[in-house]
């Protein structure tokens, strides 16, 4: 397999560096949040961080928006060029994209760090941040579109040289991920360009919270698939090989990704079940579509587990369940991914509860949600990306990982810390404890919550220590490690290969059209009604 050129490697490294700077800021503020819940208020003595809510906004923006997006924009194009065995269509465009995104990030970071954008990563108006926050984040989104463009051009160049050949699975999945995201991000782009930016610049006197939330959640649910699908790319195309086996079914993998492309977006109202101003019937339609997306998730579960099993059996694993112990647990990259999958099972089940029209009333906006998204983006995605880093960073730096033992400690401590942390938050949510609240100072703190809150601090502290082990290992890899890097994992072969897949799965137009039609059906009537009737008369406020 030909490697990407050194310039492409440098590009991936650049994205990864920014991602990790963000992750560092995110985990430090995360530690502060969890300590506050346990009764230790560190904010009076922290430099820079002005309040619990300032810290929480930093934690959310840095971790779920910056760490994920920059990691993905480094990792997924790397995978694509490696799978297609051709260079980027335009390296200039790729570097331009990196600098646009980084400039946007710096622009957003200035008001964010200066406490002028303490509006959470959801930035619901009429909370009004400094305009640079909105413009900066918009530039990051524009950058992701340029990644899509570059991937599409690269694929087209490959197609011209390889007519009639099936797109290699890792490249196919990468393209689906960015195609899905580009469609889904139109909601947040509209919110930014038509509402928040002109309003924050003083060109519009008022705004509308409901329309802004509808546009936000148009993107806000599929963004979780934008985070997850790159983790799936690793689970499908690399983890089976890392486990010593083969991908069980290439056609089934393509099918599930096409279904994610079609179904990821028209379901955002399940975040707005409790919002007034949206008809109940449309909420139910979105509930149905959310359950539809459970289907490709189940296909993924089966296919990935069957692939791991093929590896474990090749290594001498026996039995229906006990083969699991025969996976190569000494490889921190694979261990991270398998533990991420394990916890994601609970994240998926929790997600079904959230999406349930009726059960959502019990958990909406409670600590349950915090527990849920730390299992999904905080573990399925983040722990997988850490596992990827354990081979990708040594590969890019041409130096072996400093310590595999330390990496294994890191992976397992994340797993244990997260079980304590997320289980406690789920339980607190069921008891009615709100999310995004400085709970130690709350006037309505309930005795039953108080008994559990120390566990949030303990779980959060373990997670923080785990992340420090991760950073120490990476820094020592770059500075101290002298051994050459082992070969990067190759893509897995498939038991049932791409030739078994129906040809229609390799066509783009029918699926993109279907995705747009479904979105028009699910969102069209509500968006048209709101666009026509919304008065934009809510004034903005800075209340922090």
């Amino acid at each position, binding site marked *: 397999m030909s490697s990407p050129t050194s310039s492409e490697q440098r590009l991936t490294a650049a994205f990864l560096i920014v991602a990790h700077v963000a992750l560092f800021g995110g985990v430090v503020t995360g530690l502060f949040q969890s300590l506050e819940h346990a009764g230790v208020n560190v904010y009076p003595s922290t430099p820079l961080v002005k*309040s619990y*809510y300032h810290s929480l906004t930093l934690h959310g923006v840095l971790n779920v928006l910056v760490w994920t997006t920059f990691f993905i924009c480094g990792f997924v194009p790397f995978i694509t060029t490696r799978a297609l065995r051709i260079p980027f269509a335009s390296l200039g465009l790729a570097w331009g994209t990196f600098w646009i995104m980084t400039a946007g990030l710096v622009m957003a970071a200035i008001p964010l760090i200066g406490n002028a954008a303490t509006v959470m990563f959801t930035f*619901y108006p*009429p*909370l009004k941040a400094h305009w640079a926050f909105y413009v900066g984040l918009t530039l990051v989104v524009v950058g992701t579109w340029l990644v899509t463009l570059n991937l599409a051009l690269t694929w087209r160049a490959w197609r011209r040289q390889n007519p009639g050949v099936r797109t290699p699975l890792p490249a196919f999945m990468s393209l689906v991920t960015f195609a899905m995201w580009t469609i889904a991000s139109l909601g947040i782009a509209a919110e930014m360009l038509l509402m928040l930016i002109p309003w924050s610049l003083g060109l519009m006197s008022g705004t509308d*919270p*409901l329309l802004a939330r509808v546009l936000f959640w148009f993107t806000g649910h599929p963004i979780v698939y934008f985070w997850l699908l790159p983790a799936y790319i690793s689970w499908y195309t690399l983890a089976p090989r890392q486990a010593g086996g083969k991908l*069980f*079914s290439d*056609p*089934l993998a393509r099918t599930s990704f096409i279904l994610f492309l079609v179904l990821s977006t028209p379901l955002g109202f399940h975040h707005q*079940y*409790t*919002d*007034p*101003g949206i*008809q*109940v019937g449309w*909420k*139910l339609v979105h509930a*149905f579509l959310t*359950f539809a997306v*459970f*289907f490709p998730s*189940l*296909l993924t579960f*089966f296919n990935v587990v069957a692939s791991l099993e093929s590896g474990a059996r090749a290594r001498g694993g026996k039995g229906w369940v006990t083969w699991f112990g025969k996976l190569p647990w000494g490889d921190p990259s694979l261990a991270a991914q398998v533990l991420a999958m394990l916890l994601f099972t609970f994240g998926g089940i929790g997600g079904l509860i959230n999406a*349930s*029209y*009726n059960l*959502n*009333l*019990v958990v*909406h*906006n*409670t600590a349950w949600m915090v527990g849920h998204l730390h299992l999904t983006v905080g573990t399925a995605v983040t722990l997988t990306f850490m596992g990827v880093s354990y081979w990708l960073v040594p590969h890019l730096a041409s130096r072996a990982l400093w310590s595999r033992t330390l990496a294994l400690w890191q992976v397992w401590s994340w797993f244990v810390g997260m079980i304590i942390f997320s289980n406690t938050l789920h339980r607190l949510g069921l*008891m*009615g*404890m*709100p*999310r*995004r*609240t*400085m709970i130690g*100072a*709350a*006037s*309505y703190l*309930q005795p039953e919550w108080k008994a559990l809150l120390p566990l949030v601090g303990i779980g959060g502290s373990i997670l923080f220590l785990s992340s420090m082990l991760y950073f120490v290992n990476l820094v020592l890899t770059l500075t101290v490690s002298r051994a050459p890097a082992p070969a990067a994992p190759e893509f897995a072969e498939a*038991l*049932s290969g791409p030739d078994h*897949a129906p040809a229609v799965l390799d066509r783009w137009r029918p699926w993109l059209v279907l995705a747009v039609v479904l979105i028009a059906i699910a969102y069209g009537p509500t968006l048209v009604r709101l666009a026509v*009737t919304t*008065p934009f*008369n*809510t*004034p903005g*406020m800075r*209340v*922090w």
Partner: protein
Amino acid sequence: MKRGTTVYLYELAWILPSFAIPVGMLVALVVTAFGAGVHLPGNEGRVDPRTVGQTGPFAEPGVVQIAPGQYEVRMTAQIWSFAPGEIRVPVGSTVHFWATSKDVVHGFLIPRHIVNVMLLPGQVAHAQVRFDEPGEFPIICHEYCGIAHHTMAGKVIVEPRR
């Protein structure tokens, strides 16, 4: 998915239940949502957030008995309080909440009573619930609404029958 292979059979054996499970869950969801009378807020109309305190249905927040055992609460949320901040009803009452926000987005949660609504400036929100147990229950703002968000709460006092 090549017919006749072992992989194909395994795939089929998984795909069929994978399709049936979400469908079964959806049926359960629809039955409980409508059979159990779960109430979600719908489209109840708009108010002007700039004048909501002076005119219209929310000019005078308060509790009104509309029928025996039936109460209507007109409520506004503003940084960082609910008005009225305290609601007293006898046990067994059904309370219809009509609420809106005068400034930023707020939340409205009564734990263990399945009242969970967002209060958006410009929108009228509706929720209803029956209080079957006497006691004091917090009304919690569960959406970040500024620096003193954690102090924003009200209470429902359900009085025992005398």
